[in-house]
């Protein structure tokens, strides 16, 4: 028997406790005068000896429990002497079934060649050898296979639409190395095309795995490589019903490429773009397709970009780009202020924003607080108030209806705010934060707003605000605010006070900005950051989004307003799976391939799943460099870790903690029963 954590054996010394207690402790007894002692005495001798025996039994029981617990923590391994056996040979095969292995140079694909080589390798091995096979794309291991099982496993292997993961392969090898018999021989055989992306993973291995024998075979095309791939695509613009996409195409081979690039989205198709690429050349091509004018609602477009046939690998000739195009709606902005001058800066910023927008236009109406009415709020999509006045208190129910219906209320503040109106607005749940007393402290704006996605504000604009050195903008004061229970503080001042609060209410949102639109509390809106800040507050409704993921990436889609918490999605393999919505996002389970993932039912959202970039880069490795790398990663004749398996010779280690645990449980159950009986 050996122990993994032998230090815990010292815990066995705790048996001294009950032993000392037994030796020193005097039994607690009650003194009683009595008269008929002679009737007791005849039975006493037998009782005393029985009691001593029972005391001893309890002592032994308790000592046994302590010792067993110490043994359990020490993690004992029982080494059963097994029958003498012949040393066997253990073969570990790393078979690259990543997408690049699907490349075909005419007759057969690289993967077919790999399978043939692997089969030959297994067949020439000794009949009683054992085989561990790792599919490098998935990292799955099939262990201790017989020769026939190994051949069947190789034949069943298929290409997967992802890259090879070498880390899983190495960790499996180390594990097999640890548990193998000392006399066994362990060989590793790696079959891969050793694309740059795979080779780079081998280079990054810091902890080599020592093997008795190492063999590898690069699966290379016998002819010059003929492969081009679409590696990247982005939406450039959407104007006049035309969607323009820039597409990066790379020639990964040694043969010049003359292909045609087309984009297709449903029934819409772009005119083909002729591409000419020299070996190892990367070029970006614009593709334009007419998808018609955007409607009032957001539309989702699964754009499939594809190259015409003509190379040895089809899988990387298609790129899946899901695009969401927001509905084209002019935004009605109602600016409410004390005077025209007060809102001059804001109006200027919004005019600028409207002019800059390539998509939506802002229609601005400016009125004073006295004239705010329900009809104005009905007209507006966004209402911006320079501060909180008594009049807002009167129209608090109207403001609540306005937000509930999907409107956005943006409230700036000054040091002079109407407490009565605040109370009414707070009671209606309209305010995102309850402003308190004015602090005339000088503080700077914290340049890092909330990182995670919050629907209702523009995060791209938030990032761009950093470029305006907003951390240098000094506010003259601020209000101490208490956020509403449903509110989130999106932005803070440098002293930790809240700067921007957002509260969802019905279909709309209420935003409270803890600074003024004039000079009373802050100078922010006077700065050149005011336009970007306006864009931040108005939100990202006018942005075209791309939902394009890599195979191994976690797929998360932003959700439009919906009460649904659970969606059924169709993954790339055509199967239906369940996806959960959380925090305005939809978490898609494993997409199971490359292609489209889409939600079933309304709203229909798309996500494009593509190969990892560089996966089909067929650049052939330098043989000498490859040899060096493999020798470094799999050093031969390296002394393995001296583990318990080595020390034991031909003994088979068996952990016995379960037996100990059961014994302890049994003794713990027996002990009270015995002790209770002893006390009688």
């Amino acid at each position, binding site marked *: 028997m050996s122990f993994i954590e032998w230090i815990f054996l010292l815990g066995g010394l705790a048996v001294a406790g009950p032993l000392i207690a037994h030796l020193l402790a005097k039994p607690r007894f*009650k*003194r009683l*005068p009595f*008269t008929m*002692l002679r009737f*007791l005495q005849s039975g*006493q001798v037998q*009782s005393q000896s029985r009691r001593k025996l029972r005391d001893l039994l309890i002592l032994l029981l308790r000592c046994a429990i302590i010792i067993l617990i110490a043994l359990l923590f020490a993690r004992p391994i029982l080494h059963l002497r097994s029958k003498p056996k012949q040393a066997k040979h253990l073969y570990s095969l790393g078979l690259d079934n990543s997408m690049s292995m699907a490349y075909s140079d005419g007759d057969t694909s690289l993967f077919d060649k790999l399978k043939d080589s692997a089969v030959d390798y297994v067949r020439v091995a000794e009949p009683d050898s054992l085989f561990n096979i790792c599919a490098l794309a998935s990292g799955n291991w099939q262990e201790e296979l017989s020769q026939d099982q190994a051949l069947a496993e190789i034949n069943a292997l298929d290409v997967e639409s992802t890259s090879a993961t070498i880390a899983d392969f190495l960790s499996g090898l180390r594990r097999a190395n640890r548990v193998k018999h000392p006399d066994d021989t362990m060989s590793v055989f790696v079959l891969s095309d050793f694309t740059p992306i795979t080779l780079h993973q081998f280079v990054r291995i810091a902890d080599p795995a020592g093997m008795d024998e190492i063999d590898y075979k690069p699966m290379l095309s016998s002819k010059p490589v003929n492969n081009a791939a679409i590696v990247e695509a982005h939406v450039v613009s959407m104007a006049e019903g035309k969607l323009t996409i820039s597409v990066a195409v790379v020639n990964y081979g040694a043969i010049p490429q003359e292909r045609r690039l087309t984009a297709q989205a449903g029934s819409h198709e772009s005119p083909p773009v002729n591409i000419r690429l020299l070996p190892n050349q990367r070029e970006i091509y614009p593709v334009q397709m007419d998808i018609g004018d955007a409607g009032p609602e957001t539309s989702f477009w699964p754009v499939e970009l594809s190259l015409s046939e003509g190379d040895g690998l089809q899988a990387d000739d298609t790129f899946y780009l899901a695009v969401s195009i927001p509905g084209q709606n002019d935004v009605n902005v109602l600016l409410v202020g004390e005077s025209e001058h007060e809102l001059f800066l804001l109006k200027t910023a919004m005019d600028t924003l409207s002019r800059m927008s390539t998509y939506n236009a802002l229609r601005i109406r400016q009125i004073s607080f006295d004239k705010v009415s329900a009809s104005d709020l009905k007209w507006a999509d966004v209402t911006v108030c320079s501060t909180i006045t008594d009049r807002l208190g009167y129209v608090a129910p109207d403001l609540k209806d306005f937000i509930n219906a999907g409107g956005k209320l943006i409230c700036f503040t000054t040091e002079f705010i109407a407490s009565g109106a605040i109370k009414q607005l707070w009671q209606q749940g309209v305010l995102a934060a309850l402003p308190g007393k004015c602090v005339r402290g000088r503080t700077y704006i914290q340049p890092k707003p909330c990182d995670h996605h919050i629907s209702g504000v523009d995060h791209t604009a938030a990032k761009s605000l950093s470029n305006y050195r907003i951390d240098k903008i000094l506010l003259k004061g601020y209000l101490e605010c208490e956020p509403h229970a449903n509110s989130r503080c999106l932005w803070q001042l440098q002293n930790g006070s809240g700067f921007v609060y957002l509260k969802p209410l019905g279909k709309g949102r209420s935003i409270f900005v803890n600074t003024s639109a004039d000079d009373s509390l802050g100078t922010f809106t006077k700065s050149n950051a005011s336009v970007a800040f306006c864009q931040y507050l108005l939100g990202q409704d006018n942005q075209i989004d791309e939902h394009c993921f890599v195979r191994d990436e976690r797929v998360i889609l932003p959700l439009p307003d919906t009460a649904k918490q659970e969606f059924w999605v169709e993954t790339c393999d055509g199967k239906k799976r369940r996806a959960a919505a959380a925090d305005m996002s939809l978490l898609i389970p494993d997409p199971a391939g490359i292609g489209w993932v889409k939600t079933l039912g309304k709203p229909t959202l798309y996500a494009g799943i593509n190969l990892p970039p560089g996966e089909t880069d067929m650049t052939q490795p330098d043989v000498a460099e490859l040899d060096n790398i493999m020798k470094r990663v799999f050093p031969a004749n390296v002394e393995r870790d001296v583990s318990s398996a080595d020390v034991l010779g031909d003994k088979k280690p068996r952990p016995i903690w379960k037996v100990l645990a059961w014994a302890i449980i049994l003794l713990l159950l027996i002990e009270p029963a015995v002790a209770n009986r002893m*006390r009688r």
Partner: protein
Amino acid sequence: MKDSRRYLDPVFLSTLGNMDLVARCAVEGFFSGLHPSPFHGFSVEYSDHREYHAGDELKFVDWKVFGRSDKLYIKQFQQETNTTAYILLDSSKSMSFAGDGKISKMDYASFLAAALSYLMLSQSDSTALTLFAETVTKYIPPHSKRTHLNMILKTLQHNKPAGQTNLAGVLHTFAETTKRRGIVILISDLLDDRDDIFKGLAHLKFLKHDVIVFQTMDHQELNLDYEGLIQFEDLESKQKMRTFPRSLREGYRRRVAEFLDEIEKTTGNTGIDYCLLDTSQPLDRALVAYLAKRKRLM
């Protein structure tokens, strides 16, 4: 419990404090609890008529007969037969045992002695009291006057148990020193050598005494209902023994039962009335036993 029976409860009696009150409560409680009582009529009873002779007391003339027959007749009554009762009360240390802490065997025995004394003296029987342990520690000679009761009760009240039991020796001594026959009432736990006890009792019986033995035992002495580890200390010998009573209980009860059975058999064979009294029980069993004995004698 009926109100009258309440006065027979030893625990209640122990709260009274005054031994005179104890005796009265016990006896009156006893009698008022008997309906109808089988023990009435022990007082002076009419027997016959005879002719008047000079010198006869006029108070015994039956004037009704004289009215009818013009002859003087004297009413003859059954002659009162006063007996002497000797109460032998064990005052050894073992009698101080009180298993449940409520009432000791000594208290119980004292109440019994007081009640019996009260009863006897109210029936004009001479009553003597002997307290003993290893030897006789106190002796009150027999008298039938009611005032004698005070002395007996006072003695009982101030009695403190002490010393070891030497029952056989005391019985022999008593037998040798007592000239007049009577009822010997032995109140003791009989925790002494069995053979010696029987010899002493046989000695009394040989001298034509009527003997009643009241063996007072505590409930715990009979049953040993203790739990846990206990160190028992003998009240008389000071011996100590530590044990778990539960483990010995069965054997103990068996041995005690054998001991009591042997006493009962032996006393029965020798014509001695035997009554085992549990100190947790009322006093009426003892009083009934005494009265039954006296009735047989009359």
